[in-house]
Structure formats: C-alpha cells, structure tokens
C-alpha cells in the first residue's frame, strides 16, 4: 500500500478530512521550500503537493504563474525539485509528497529517468496537469512498477466515461477541480460541487480531494464536507508573495493559515 493510500485510509478511519497544501518549489527561493514543508506538516498538513515550476503554466492563474516565475528566476528545475524532496525525506519519512506540474520537464528528463529518480528520492505521487489518461500509456506502467501514484484531475464537465476511466487508472486519490477555470479563481459553487461529487462516487472508490477556490478556514471546512479533503494552493502562495523578502513572515503566515484550516476541518 502506498504512503498516500495509507495516509488517506488512516484519516478515513479516524473520521477526518485531509488537508493538502500546495506550494511552488523554489518560491520565493530554493532555501525556503524544505523548511516550509516541515512547518506545514507541523501545522497539520497530511500530504504535500509540491509545484514544479514551468515557463508556460497554462492552467494556472496569476498568483501561481508569478510563483513559477520567481522560482525559475532562481533556476529551479525538475531535477532540483527532486533534490528538495530528497532533503525533506532526511527528516520526514511519513508525509506523502506529490509533484504537481506540466509534462514537458518530465519529457525533457526522460520518462524512465524521471521515474527512477522520483522513486529514489521518495516521491509518492505525480500529477501532470496536461497529461490526460489518453496520452499516459507510456508513463503509467513505469509509475506503477515504481509504486508511484499517478493522480488525475477531474473537472465539473468530465463525462461519466472519463470519470470511470480515471477511477481505474488513477492511484492514491482523484483531484477534483471544483470549478471551470484556472488556479486561484474564486467562482466556487458548493451546490454544483456536491452534485458532481455524488456522481463521481458512484463511479469510483478512490478518495476525492477537492481543490481550486479554497481560500480560508470557512471555505476549507465547507468544501471538505463534500469530499475526502481539500487542496489549498493560491491562498498559500499569495501569502508567500505578499511577505516578499521576509521569509520568516511567509512561514508564519502559511502555517497560521494552515492551522486555522486544520482546526476548522477537525471541528
């Protein structure tokens, strides 16, 4: 059983929802990332999604676009993100880490090379925004062999056929994109999410983590009730951006936000 599945099963048995923070690796600087990951775990994170910066983040809104640009200005790359995971694992062997990004850096490194390195440093899952299942037939068996979970995105307009397919091919969890839009958008409609999650549940037994539009403790609590947990990204990345050069302020702000979300999820 993968580290992700074990973590989510334990939460389920305890009757708790997962809290999954996303930050972009290397933002605002490479030295920030590993300490921030540890602090986020202390503040109540169950799984960490680590964004791999890309020059052309087509599915991201302005907040995460700018985070990518800041990270790239520090020459962050997929290779270096893998090294950050290795460093994180020196002190934390329990918290699952999912890499989230775009396909081209993975293609550039080479699928097998990437999978081997990811396994070696302790990556648990990968979520590639622009690789739908139809284009994943080469990569999936390699991930499977390495025991790394491929995590697929579901959207409000995913058809039943596609939901079923991703239920079969996905491992760990499914990431439900709560709205039609880019990351950081805020036109979230809870009623729509609730209806769609019901449809998805009929087609798959994988846990469903809901992201996009989770801003604060209230939205986190409300959204988490509809699925198995929440992913929070732009709200955290926005705090890092606002803190500017002051990285200790950034750390404090993101851990405060996560702690408040943790409390509201447990309530």
């Amino acid at each position, binding site marked *: 059983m993968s580290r992700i599945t074990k973590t989510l099963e334990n939460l389920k048995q305890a009757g708790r929802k997962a809290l999954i923070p996303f930050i972009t690796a290397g933002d605002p600087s490479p030295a920030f990332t590993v300490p921030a990951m540890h602090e986020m775990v202390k503040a109540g994170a169950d799984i960490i999604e680590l964004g791999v910066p890309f020059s052309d983040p087509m599915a991201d809104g302005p907040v995460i676009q700018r985070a990518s640009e800041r990270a790239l200005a520090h020459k962050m790359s997929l290779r270096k993100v893998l090294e950050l995971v290795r460093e994180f694992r020196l002190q934390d062997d329990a918290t699952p880490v999912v890499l989230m990004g775009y396909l081209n850096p993975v293609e550039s490194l080479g699928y097998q090379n990437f999978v081997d390195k990811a396994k070696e440093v302790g990556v648990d899952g990968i979520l590639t925004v622009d690789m739908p299942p139809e284009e994943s037939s080469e990569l999936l068996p390699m991930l499977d062999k390495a025991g790394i979970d491929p995590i697929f995105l579901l959207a409000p307009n*995913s058809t039943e056929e596609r939901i079923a397919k991703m239920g079969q091919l996905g491992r760990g969890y499914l990431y439900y994109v709560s709205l039609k839009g*880019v990351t950081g958008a805020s036109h979230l409609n809870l009623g729509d999410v609730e209806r769609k999650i019901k449809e998805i549940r009929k087609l798959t037994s994988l846990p469903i983590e809901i992201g996009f539009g989770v801003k604060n403790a209230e939205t986190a609590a409300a959204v988490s009730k509809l699925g198995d947990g929440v992913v929070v990204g732009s709200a955290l990345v926005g705090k890092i951006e606002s803190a500017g050069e002051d990285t200790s302020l950034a750390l404090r702000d993101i851990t405060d936000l996560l702690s408040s979300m943790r409390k509201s999820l447990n309530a």
Partner: protein
Amino acid sequence: MRSKALTNLELTESYNLPDQRGHFGPYGGVFVAETLMLPISELTEAYYRYMKDKEFLAELDYDLQHYVGRPSPIYHAERLSREMGGAQIFLKREDLNHTGAHKVNNTVGQALLAKRMGKTRIIAETGAGQHGVATATVAARLGLECVVYMGSVDVARQAPNVLRMKLLGAKVVPVESGSKTLKDALNEAMRDWVTNVDNTFYIIGTVAGPHPYPAMVRDFQAVIGRESKEQMLEMTGHNPDVLVACVGGGSNAIGLFYPFIDDHEVAMHGVEAAGDGIATGRHSAPLSAGRPGVLHGNRTYLMEDEDGEIIETHSISAGLDYPGVGPEHAWLKDSGRAHYVSITDDEAMQGFHALTRLEGIIPALESSHAIAYAMKLATTLAKDKTILVNLSGRGDKDINTIAAREGISL
C-alpha cells in the same frame, strides 16, 4: 475551374494523418487540462461532421470567393527570377486576400463552425496581429463578441494591427507574462477558454494546439495548395519543382504543402526564422535547432533549455516568433518528406527590399523569409525549374518595424 478547386475538400488519399486521436507519428495528440477535454471532443465531433456537410462546405466556398476574394492569383515574378539568373519564381498571392494574409482562410472556416456550434463568444491569440485582425473581422461580420490576446511586446511592434482590431470591435488584451509574445498570448487564451468553455470558441491561428486544431487549420488552409496545383498546371503545364513557405506555427506552409504531399516529385521547403543566426541562440527555429517536447496541447519540436523550460525566441517578424511548430511539420521533417531551412533577420530584409523594388510588391516580414530563401535557392537551379513561394501576407503592418530598423523617421 474556379469552383472546382474550392469544393474539392476531400482529403488526400494515401497520406492520411493524423490518426483518430490526432497523432502524426509520435507528434500531435491532445495534451490539455481535464476541463478542456469535453469542449475539445465536441469540437472534434463537429469539425468532422461539418467537413462532410454539403451545406457547410457550400457556405464556406461562398465566403472564400465573395468575402475573402479567392482564388488568389499566382504571379510569375519575372524580374526577380531574371535578377537571380536561375529557376523561375512564382508567387501565390495570399497577400491579396481580404485582411492581407492567409490567416483569414482559417478564421472564416472556424467562425462558421463556431456559429454552427451555437457559440457566442470568440477568443484568439495573435503574434503579428494578422490572425487577430482576421478573427476580429469574421467576428464583426457574424456579430460575435471577440477577445484577442496579444503579447505586450507584439502590441508595441504591430500597432497598426492593434488599431484595426479595435476598430473592428474586438477587445485586445495585452499579455504581460513570460516573454510577452505569441506563446504567452496562447497561454492566456487557453486560460480564458478553460474559464469560459460553455459559450466560447477558441479560434487558434496556426496548425498548433491540441487535436483537432492542427488538422482543422490545415484543412481550412489547404485551399492554398489546391488552387496552386490547378493554377500552376494551367500556367506552366506541370507541378512546381519546389514549394517554399515561411514557418511560424506552420499554417501557410502546410496549406500550400498538403495537397502536394503525395506528388513525390515536388520538393517542399519550410523556412524558419534564424533571427540573429542559429549559432547565436537568438532565433525562432525549433525544427532546425530544437528538440521534441510537449507544449500548447501537442508534442512537437520546441525551443527549450536542458530542463525542459521553454526559452525565449527572437525574430524580426512577430508572426514567426514562436518556440514551437505544428506537429505535422515535425512529422514531415522526421519522415524526410519536407525539408526545413532558416533565414536570418538580415537576409529577410534583403528579400523584403528585393521584392518591393523589383516587383512592386511589399511583402510581410514573415513572407520575406520565404522570398529570401527562394532567391538563394533559385541561383542553384536551372532556368527551366519552377519555385512556387507562398506570399503569405502583405507588408503594410510592418512599416513601423522597418522604419525603426533602418533609421527612417515617418
């Protein structure tokens, strides 16, 4: 003959790419976020249905004739040919189309499709502004809302086209992210599309993007090659020996090449932008100096660094300033059916001046790359050989760029 060329839309028989999911060998495909999968499959379904629908095709033919002004003529550039002292250079005059470039062949087609699909809002990306103008034009005619994304660098260097789009009623959104050019405009258009999928039709301006765009844009542009085949036969008695076209995303090139793919005696040369020179790294020539990767929904040759990050491109012509290229060109390159070369900014300027002075035709800077290469090629071929160059657009939009480069004050 006129209408025969236009209605002859069946696809070339023996070459039958892409496959069902949009692959040209290892290239092409559909690499997009989940939210776009449904609109893309709806578009694919509608596209293949309407390309077999007699009424749709008749309406498209009518618009191409009466609105765009097709067929565009072929002109024998006799003075230019004589000056080079070799092969005969012929020009396919896409610059004479309504709005001044080949781009409108595609926007007329996609807009008709948008209307059939009940979409009320059109979005587009643009580099040189020619595709933006061609999109704003058809949107005005059909009464559709139109938003055009354009990198802020391009907004500055293609000011006349920005004004034209605004006059046509389009909203032009300058894009400030990344390199602030065509690729970033495409990113932003994709973000808009993902947010407004229900009512919005995205008219991509070249043979890039996820399937079905590379195939669909090619099929709409293939009217160029179909007409050329008949016209060259009439003028010279046979197919041209060499086809030459500039390659940005590759739509004017594939439009000319496609109907000739099975005519193996016809050579095909695509001309990329070498900018300051391939060796300087400041260019836009992924087929000449890039490697395969995934960007903007398809797998193709890209300009990227060793980590797979897309690098900034450079070309004097905004329409060629793109780090990727249509996946079908990637396949034609690998398969050896087409041949890709490059022309620097300086060489393109020489081609620009030569055509302007010798033939009285002011070409777009994009097309000037094709002209410059054809001039070089002509000197290596016998006088009875024929080169057909796709003169993809006229140069009026570029006069500010040229004035600035040559220190002329307007």
